[in-house]
Every structure is written in C-alpha cells, then in structure tokens.
C-alpha cells in the first residue's frame, strides 16, 4: 500500500530526534525550558542543513526528519541557499522566510483562530 510507504523510517528517525530533545530537557538545568528546546532544534537544523548533514536524514526518514522543528530549520537554511543561487546576495534575506512562508502563515492563522474560538481549561 502506497499510503504506508516510509512509515517505519519516519517513525524511527522522528522518535530518535525526539529522544535527543528529551535528553536535552532531562540532562540540563530546569531553566532549559521547552522554548529553549525548540530554539535549539530550529537553529541546529539550520546549521546541519547548511553543512549538508540534514538532507540525508530527510532522504532516509522523510517526515521523521521534516516534521520535527529541526526540519523547519533545515527548510529555512535550504531556502536561503537556494535563493542565493538564484538571485544573489538578496536571496540570503528572502529565501528562508519564503521557503517556510506556508508554515509560518499557517501557525499564525490557526494559532489565532483556535485562541479566539476556545477558552483556557481549568
């Protein structure tokens, strides 16, 4: 079944990436919050992407590497580099945001709508 292709690699790669995040949380001071984890992953993904080390992970793990926030960082870096190849130095400024615009816009829109529609629990 086509729909189930790549599921196991995605599960394994995604699981391992999340374990790295868990170790970051458990083995550091409590002041290392989930916000720090997310910032570490997005920055780490961008740097690994720039070094060319994240692409193989996407090829092996598919969504397992693209769904974690490190995949967002990879898309930012890849977008910036692709845009530099196409349009020169200005691409460094435009490429990252352009490549991730759908995700950013979706996060703002859906985040806003849900915050309006629901009330806090408890």
């Amino acid at each position, binding site marked *: 079944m*086509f729909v189930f292709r790549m599921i196991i690699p995605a599960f394994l790669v995604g699981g391992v990436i999340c374990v790295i995040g868990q170790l970051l*949380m458990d083995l550091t001071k409590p002041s290392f919050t989930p916000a720090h984890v997310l910032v570490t992953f997005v920055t780490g993904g961008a740097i690994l992407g720039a070094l060319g080390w994240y692409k193989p992970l996407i090829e092996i793990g598919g969504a397992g590497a693209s769904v974690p926030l490190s995949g967002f960082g990879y898309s930012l870096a890849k977008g910036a580099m692709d845009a530099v190849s196409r349009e020169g130095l200005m691409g460094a400024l435009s490429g990252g945001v352009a490549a991730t615009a759908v995700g950013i816009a979706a996060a703002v829109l859906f985040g806003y709508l849900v915050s309006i529609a629901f009330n806090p629990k408890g």
Partner: protein
Amino acid sequence: MSQNMRPPTLKITPEEYKDLSTKLTPKPTVLKNCIWAFFVGGLICAIGQVIINLFVAGGLNQTQASTAATALLIFLGALLTGLGVYDEIGKYAGAGSIVPVTGFANSIVSPALEFKREGYVMGVGARLFTVAGPVLVYGIATSIVVGIIYYFLH
C-alpha cells in the same frame, strides 16, 4: 523546646545521612521519559508521513506535499491544544510532543489562550509569539547568516 524533642532514631552522621538519602531518592525517570518521547514523537512523524503520502497520491509533488502536511499538522496541533487534549499527551510524551511541528503549534496556542483575558491585542496577539518569537528570531537569523556565507563560498 529542644529538651522536649525525642532522641534521634537514626544514629548516623550527616555524611551517612546524605549517602542514604541519595540511595533512597527515586532514580530520575530519564529512561522512561525517553521511551515515551520516542514512541509519541515517532507516532506523530509517522502520521505526518501518511499525510504526505496521501497528498502525493492526490497529485502534489514531494515538496508541496511536505509543505501541505506541515500546515495540516500545525492545524491539528493547534486544535488539539484548544480542546485541551494536547497538553494531556504532553504530560507523558515530553519532548515527543514538543519537538514535532505540532508542539510548535501548541507553544503558540497555549500562552495565547492563557492570557486571553488581557485582551485581543496584548493578550492573544502578543502571546501567540511567546515561544514562536524566539524560534523565528533564531531560525530566520541563522538562515540569513547561512545564506551570506553560502554567497561568499560560491
């Protein structure tokens, strides 16, 4: 007061007490946390892969499908946070529910909901970016630096 206190039942030195208390303190649940993170994080990514495959079957190319799947996962993460379900998962899953993009959506909705009473501008509008702000600042800044370095190397 002190003469009324009962004699100590444990005849040990402070050093011995320290030893004993370290031995009796429950081991940090790092391993258990990691297993939860692995399974929940893996499951969210597996669901993401199913969504990508469905979009590809529907005629999108790989990049479009991946982008659309990210948007859908952000929607689901936001909705489940609004329903109060995502934070329940997060109690067990830890990083397994934080690191995937659904956790990014959760980090956007949670503070916005919590501070809704502060109004729609400084409450919801500002708090949407409590965590998303730092993520975008560091992510975008890194991508610009990467782009500039790439420009001078090629």
